[in-house]
C-alpha cells in the first residue's frame, strides 16, 4: 500500500502575476486576422453590415491588447498557482461531493460536440436515447415517476421544484392560501432561497440541540393550512440522517402540502434508500456531484428533477419520450411550467453521467454509497482524535457521508480559529476545507466529505495535516494566524472590503471606478 506522506516542503508557485489588463499594451495583438481576399470581398461585400443595429456595440469593447506569448505565459502562471482541478485531495469540500471524474467520460463528451440541439430529432436519436435511459436510471434510483434534465444545476432544479409546487397549488385554487414553505437550517440554503424567489415565505426549523435534527414537534408548529411544501435535505449539512423522515413527510402531506427532497448529494444512499419509500413527492440530484461529472470551472453542472405521477403534467417542456420505435421531444404539456432553460438538458453532462452509471452498474452504485460512508466513518474517527476538534450534536452517533466538525476548543485555547487553519492547510499542498453555509450555527466549523474515490492514505493525509496544524497552533498561534506561508497568495489585506459594496470589485472596470479614482 502507498505510504502516508505529509508534504512538509511543498511550495506553490508565486508569480506575482498582474491582472491581464495590466499587461496590456495598446496596439499589441495575439493574432492578426487576415483580410478576406479581394474576390471574396467583392462577392460578399461587408458582411458586418447585415448585423441588426441592436446587436452592434456603440463603442469598442475594452479588451486587453496582448501578444500570443504573453497570453499563454499569463495563463500558464495562473494555472501553476492552483492545486489542479479534480486531482487534489478534495475530501475537504463537505456538502460538495467532490469525487474523481473519470477522464474517459470527458473523451466521450467530446464526441458530441458537433451535435446541435436544433437538429432534427431523427438525426440525434443516440443522444435522445442516452437522455431517456439516464432518466430511467434516475427513476430506478429514486422511485420517482418522471424526470426533467433541463435545469443547469442543483439550485436551478430546486427552483424548478418550487415553480412546480406553485403550479400545483394554483391548479387546486389554493396558491393564495398556501404561501409558506418549510425547510431546516441545515438544509442547503437554496432550499429556502429558491422557493423565496418563486414567491413563497420561508419557515425554517431549528434543530434539537442534542439530536442535531429538528423535532417532529417543531415541524408540527410550522405546518398549517398555509404550508405549500417542505424542502429538506437529508442527511443535512451535519451528516446526521433524520430517521424519522417518513413521519415528517406524513405530517406535511396530511396538511395538504407537498414534500421535496433535496438529494443533490446522494452519495450516502445510492442503491440503499429511495425518496419514494420515504413518501416524497419530488426530489432532485446534482448530476455534477453524485453522478461523477465535474464541478465548478470544469463543469457545466446539471440538476435532474424527479416527480411523482400527480406532478408530471407540470414538468418543463420538452421531455424526452420513446414511442417504441424512435425517441422524440414532447412539447405537449398544456399545464407545464414552461421552460427553465434552453433545449432538453446539458447534453455532455448527461452523457458523462450515463457512462458513469453504466460503468458501475446497480451493484457498483451501492458500493459507491457503502465506501463513501465507510470512508467518512474512518475519517471521523481519525479527525475526532485530534485534540481541539469537536462535533456538535448526536454524540457517538455515526454520520452518513459527511461531518460538520468544529474547532471551538482549539480556538478557545489558542485563538486560532477555523479560518486560520483553513489557510494553513494550503501550505501542505492540499485543498483548504469548506467551513459551513451561513449563518454559522456551529461556531468555528469545518465540513469534510470523503467520497468513494479517495484512498485510505488520502484520508490519513488529511487528518494528519489537521493534527499537525493543531499542534502548530498550540506552539505558535501567530504563525498559523499569519498563514499561508507557502501558497501563491497571502492573506487578503482588507477582508472587510469583501463585505463592502463600495469596495468590492469583480470586474476590471469596477476596480478602476472604485479604487483608482
Amino acid at each position, binding site marked *: 500500500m502507498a505510504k502516508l506522506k505529509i508534504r512538509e516542503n511543498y511550495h506553490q508557485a508565486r508569480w506575482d502575476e498582474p491582472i491581464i489588463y495590466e499587461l496590456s499594451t495598446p496596439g499589441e495583438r495575439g493574432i492578426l486576422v487576415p483580410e478576406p481576399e479581394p474576390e471574396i470581398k467583392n462577392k460578399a461585400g461587408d458582411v458586418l453590415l447585415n448585423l441588426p443595429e441592436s446587436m452592434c456595440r456603440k463603442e469598442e469593447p475594452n479588451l486587453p491588447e496582448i501578444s500570443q506569448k504573453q497570453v499563454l505565459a499569463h495563463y500558464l502562471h495562473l494555472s501553476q498557482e492552483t492545486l489542479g482541478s479534480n486531482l487534489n485531495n478534495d475530501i475537504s469540500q463537505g456538502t460538495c461531493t467532490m469525487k474523481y471524474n473519470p477522464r474517459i467520460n470527458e473523451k466521450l463528451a467530446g464526441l458530441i460536440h458537433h451535435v446541435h440541439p436544433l437538429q432534427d430529432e431523427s438525426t440525434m436519436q443516440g443522444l435522445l436515447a442516452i437522455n431517456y435511459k439516464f432518466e430511467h436510471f434516475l427513476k430506478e434510483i429514486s422511485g420517482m415517476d418522471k424526470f426533467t434534465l433541463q435545469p443547469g444545476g442543483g439550485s436551478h432544479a430546486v427552483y424548478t421544484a418550487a415553480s412546480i409546487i406553485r403550479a400545483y397549488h394554483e391548479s387546486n385554487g389554493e396558491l393564495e392560501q398556501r404561501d409558506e414553505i418549510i425547510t431546516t*437550517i441545515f438544509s442547503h440554503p437554496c432550499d*429556502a432561497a429558491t422557493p*423565496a424567489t418563486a414567491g*413563497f*415565505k*420561508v*419557515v*425554517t*426549523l*431549528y*434543530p*434539537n*440541540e442534542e439530536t442535531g435534527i*429538528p*423535532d417532529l*414537534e*417543531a*415541524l*408540527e*408548529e*410550522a405546518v398549517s393550512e398555509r404550508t405549500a411544501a417542505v424542502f429538506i435535505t437529508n442527511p443535512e449539512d451535519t451528516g446526521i440522517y433524520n430517521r424519522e423522515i417518513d413521519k415528517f413527510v406524513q405530517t406535511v402531506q396530511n396538511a395538504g402540502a407537498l414534500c421535496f427532497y433535496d438529494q443533490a448529494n446522494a452519495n450516502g444512499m445510492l442503491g440503499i434508500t429511495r425518496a419514494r419509500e420515504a413518501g416524497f413527492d419530488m426530489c432532485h440530484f446534482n448530476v455534477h456531484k453524485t453522478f461523477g461529472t465535474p464541478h465548478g470551472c470544469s463543469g457545466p453542472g446539471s440538476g435532474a428533477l424527479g416527480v411523482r405521477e400527480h406532478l408530471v403534467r407540470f414538468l418543463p417542456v420538452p421531455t424526452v419520450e420513446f414511442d417504441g420505435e424512435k425517441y422524440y421531444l414532447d412539447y405537449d404539456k398544456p399545464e407545464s411550467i414552461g421552460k427553465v432553460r434552453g433545449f432538453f438538458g446539458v447534453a455532455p453532462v448527461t452523457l458523462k453521467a450515463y457512462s458513469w452509471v453504466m460503468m458501475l452498474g446497480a451493484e457498483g452504485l451501492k458500493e459507491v454509497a457503502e465506501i463513501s460512508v465507510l470512508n467518512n466513518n474512518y475519517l471521523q474517527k481519525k479527525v475526532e482524535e485530534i485534540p481541539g476538534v469537536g462535533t*456538535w450534536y448526536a454524540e457517538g452517533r455515526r454520520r452518513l457521508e459527511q461531518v460538520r466538525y468544529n474547532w471551538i476548543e482549539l480556538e478557545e485555547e489558542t*485563538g486560532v*480559529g477555523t479560518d486560520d487553519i483553513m489557510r494553513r492547510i494550503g501550505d501542505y499542498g492540499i485543498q483548504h476545507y469548506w467551513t459551513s453555509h451561513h*449563518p*454559522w*450555527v456551529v*461556531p468555528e466549523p469545518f465540513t469534510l466529505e470523503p467520497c468513494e474515490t479517495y484512498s485510505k492514505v488520502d484520508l490519513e493525509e488529511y487528518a494528519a495535516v489537521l493534527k499537525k496544524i493543531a499542534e502548530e497552533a498550540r506552539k505558535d498561534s501567530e504563525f498559523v494566524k499569519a498563514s499561508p506561508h507557502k501558497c501563491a497568495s497571502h492573506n487578503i489585506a*482588507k477582508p*472587510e472590503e469583501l*463585505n463592502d459594496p463600495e469596495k468590492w470589485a469583480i470586474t476590471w472596470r469596477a476596480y478602476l471606478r472604485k479604487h483608482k479614482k
Partner: protein
Amino acid sequence: MKLGFIVNPIAGMGGKVGLKGTDGMEILEKARRLGAYPEAPKKAKKALKLLTPLINDIEILTYPGKMGEDEAIALGFNPKVLGEKKDIVGPDDTEEAARKMLDMDIDLLLFAGGDGTARNIYNVVGDKVPVLGIPAGVKIHSAVYANHPRSAGEVALKYLKGELTRIREAEVMDIDEAAFRKEQVTAKLYGYMKVPFEQQLVQSLKAGRPEEEESARDSIADRVVAEMKPDVLYIIGSGTSTRPIMEKLGLPNTLLGIDIVKNKKIVASDVSEREILEHIEGRKAKIIVTVIGGQGYIFGRGNQQLSGNVIRKIGIDNIRIIATKNKLVSLGGQPILVDTGDDKVNNMFNRYMRVVTSYNEEIIYKVKGL
C-alpha cells in the same frame, strides 16, 4: 489618536469566591476575606499589550495606579495620568475618569470590568464616543464587551489603525446584584453604547454585520407593520429590534420601555404593568417582543412590565417574537427563555414558537419557561 484606558481593578473578584459580582463595598470586603485577588489588571494588560505596535502613535489617557497607569507603564507606554491616586477606588472613580477623558476628546475608550463598569461608563459616555470593553467582571451580559481580552486588544488595534471603521450599537445590561445574590434575577437594559465592529471578535450577542442587522431589523419591522390589524392594541417591547417598527409608523419610541400602539397611532408611551393591564382590559391585544441580551430572554429581563399577568390576559398565541437570524444563531442552540416569575405562565412557553426573522422568513425555535 487618543485612547482612554480605564481599569476597574476590583472587577471579577467576586466570581472566584462564588459571589455574584463585586458591586458594593461590603461585598468587596467579603471577597477579599475569602481570598479573592484582582483579576482585572491582568486581563486589561493582556488586551493593552496588543497595542504596543502603536506605542509611538497613540496617546493614552488613564487614571492612577491600578486603574490603568500601572498596566500601561508595565507594558512600556508613557500614559498621561489624570486624577488623584486613591487607595480604594469605586464606581464614582470610573465615572469621573470617563468624564475627564471625554472632555479631552478621546477617539476610543477601552475599559476593563463587568456589567457594573459598563453601566458606569454608559452613565457618562452614552453614545458620545466609541467604547470597547475588556471582559474582566463576573457578569458579562452587556454586548459592549469583546469575547476575550485578547480580542479586545485586536479590535482596538484595528480601530486605532483605521482598519475598522464600522460602529454598531451594543447593549448595556446589568442585573440587580443585591437581588441576584438572593437568587432573584432581575436584569435591566440600561441603554446602548457605540462599539467598533469586527465580526469575529466582539461579543457574539449580535454577531451580524451592522448593515446586515439593520436591514434585517428593517425587514422584520415591515412584516410586523404589514400584519397589524385594525383596532388591535400592539404592545411594543423594548430594544433596538422593535425600534424600526415605531420608526416606520412615524411614532415616538421608548428604547428601554414599552409602548402601546393602535391603528398605527400611539396610545401610550413607556407604560407600567398596571397601565398595560388597564389598556388591555376587555380588548384584543398583541405583544411584539425581541430577545434581549446574550442569554436569550424574551420576558423577565429588561421588560418586567410584561408580567405574567399581562401575558395571561393577552394569551400566548398573541405574542409575536422577532429577532434577526444572527441573534438567534448567537444563542448557540440554547432555547429562548421566559422568566416571568409566574410558574404557570412560564410553563405555557415550553414549546416551539415562530420567530419572525425578516419580511419573508420565520424560524421555528424552542422556547423554555424557567
